């Protein structure tokens, strides 16, 4: 058999994408973590090896799942819409929903589920309220294609885009407490703005929230 195929890919565990690093820094060491939509497992792998977390993942794409399991990560092929309701309440310290919420069919239910099964949820999403998207829509009258939203409207997986203001409102409706919030710039770095305010919604490329269910 092909020996090369069984050698786990080597990846530097020191460097992950900036926005993922911001999320990773919010997770406490040794926590139980579920990464919903974990992709190729970069964040999960970093957390397992640098913060000693008990990490699990759900990923929709089979290629992503296989890549994760090949690295020794505990990841299942599944769907945020259908698979979250199996988990018992408070099964995890953190449920991470990184750049996933806007790609779900039913973000409201998914958000409700992540704060049920996690004591805290870390949610990030592209902010559709950022000034250049508003400007683009106003001046060109077409759906914007940007760094973080890089597909045309007819092929984008992002079917439920929202603004930071929309997200804050949904949290209020669902009785979800925003414990911490950040806005990120186009490079994924935190910006020093009050993250739920008018300016955040205007200048933030991404919103990043630590939320929990009101108990």
């Amino acid at each position: 058999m092909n020996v090369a195929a069984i050698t786990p890919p080597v990846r530097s565990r020191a460097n992950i994408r900036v926005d993922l690093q911001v999320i990773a820094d919010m997770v406490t060491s040794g926590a139980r973590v579920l990464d919903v939509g974990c992709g190729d497992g970069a964040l999960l792998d970093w957390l397992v090896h640098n913060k000693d977390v008990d990490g699990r993942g759900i990923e929709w794409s089979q290629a992503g799942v296989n890549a994760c399991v090949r690295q020794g990560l505990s990841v299942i092929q599944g769907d945020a819409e259908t698979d979250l309701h199996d988990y018992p309440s408070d099964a995890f310290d953190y449920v991470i929903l990184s750049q996933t919420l806007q790609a779900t069919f039913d973000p409201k239910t998914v958000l409700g589920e992540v704060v049920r099964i996690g004591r805290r949820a870390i949610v990030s999403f592209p902010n559709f309220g950022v000034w250049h998207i508003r400007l683009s829509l106003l001046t060109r009258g077409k759906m914007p294609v940007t760094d973080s939203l890089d597909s045309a409207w007819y092929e984008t997986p992002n079917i439920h885009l929202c603004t930071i203001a929309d997200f804050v409102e949904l949290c209020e409706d669902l009785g979800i407490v925003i414990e911490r919030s950040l806005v990120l710039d186009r490079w994924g770095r935190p910006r020093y703005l009050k993250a739920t305010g008018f300016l955040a919604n205007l200048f933030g490329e991404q919103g990043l929230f630590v939320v929990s269910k009101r108990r």
Partner: protein
Amino acid sequence: MHGAAPLRIMSNLKSALPAGMPASVTAPVAPVAPQILLPGHRLDFSASASLQLDCGVSLAPFTVAYQTYGELNADKSNAILVCHALTGDQFVAETHPVTGKPGWWEHMVGPGLTLDTDRYCVICVNVLGGCMGSTGPADINPATGEPWGLSFPVITIGDMVRAQLRVIDHLGIESLFCVIGGSMGGMQVLQWAAAYPERVFSAVPIACATRHSAQNIAFHEVGRQAIMADPEWCNGEYQRAGRKPVRGLAVARMAAHITYLSEPALHRKFGRQLQDREQVSYGFDADFQVESYLRHQGSTFVDRFDANSYLYITRAMDYFDMAAEHDGAVVNAFRGTKTRFCLVSFTSDWLFPTPESRAIVHALNAAAANVSFVEISTDKGHDAFLLDEPEFFATLSGFLNGCAEHRGLRTPL
């Protein structure tokens, strides 16, 4: 103590062992065909060490035959138990002593392979009710001096696992690094993880389910009826009559074999191609290659398998139903488990299709268990778990390496 042990070729050796101790003999074992000596190990359990079966019978004496590859490390933390499927046996990675064919998992088990025998000690036990050295219906019932035949008690997956546990206890292994198996082997893996969670560090149920579906029971029933319809079966007493229901058993194998493949794989392999002829014969010869192939599968199977064993083992699979045994929900079987699971299914497997594995994943999630799940793309059907599937090996290696890291097992040099 061991005087009532089955009349096997090695029975004279056992009398030298202290009373109450199971006899482990690393010398040959007498199989179905008594003239062939099987390699491997056997454990004989005396009347005082009976096995309590699910059907209520207390089985004693009985024998369990097993094979090992690789060495146990000092703290016995590197043992992998391989559970074989319906018609498999303990000869996982060596030339089969009866058929002369390669081991059934030779791509998987060996030095430097996924189940690396330089690193792990791989153990495989012939299932109870089988016919490669473990006690089964073809053996002599010591109470009557005649072959058990249909008077052999009905065996369950749970009974098979209890018999395997005796071997693991005998070897002094407190916790198995991994229990792995496909198909019926996967059922045993699930049973191990449910019944003895503290003794299973990781579990890999491949292409299996928590219960046998109606369709699968139906296929098994076709096989059993084929055997029973063979006049040579003699109501199960063919050994006493000096006969052998080879036709019935071959038909059972042919029917089952179709379920292990897939339509695309059969088409790719055979299509409608004719066997050694230019045109159809307008008769019932094996005109088509696929017919010839199935007949070959059937006729070679009967050389190594006992018809009554086939009845008993298929029954064990039919009876398997984890939800029924755990208050109606599979999750109850796994609550609080610390075992690390990796489930594998294959896209073209219609005998144990992916939704069966996904249902196990859902139950494990509900128990907040540590679980990985991969579906491997292949057109080879259920049999894919026995074949050279690089993606399958790669994911399994990754899973095992991750487990070894958590277990603190040394990586090979």
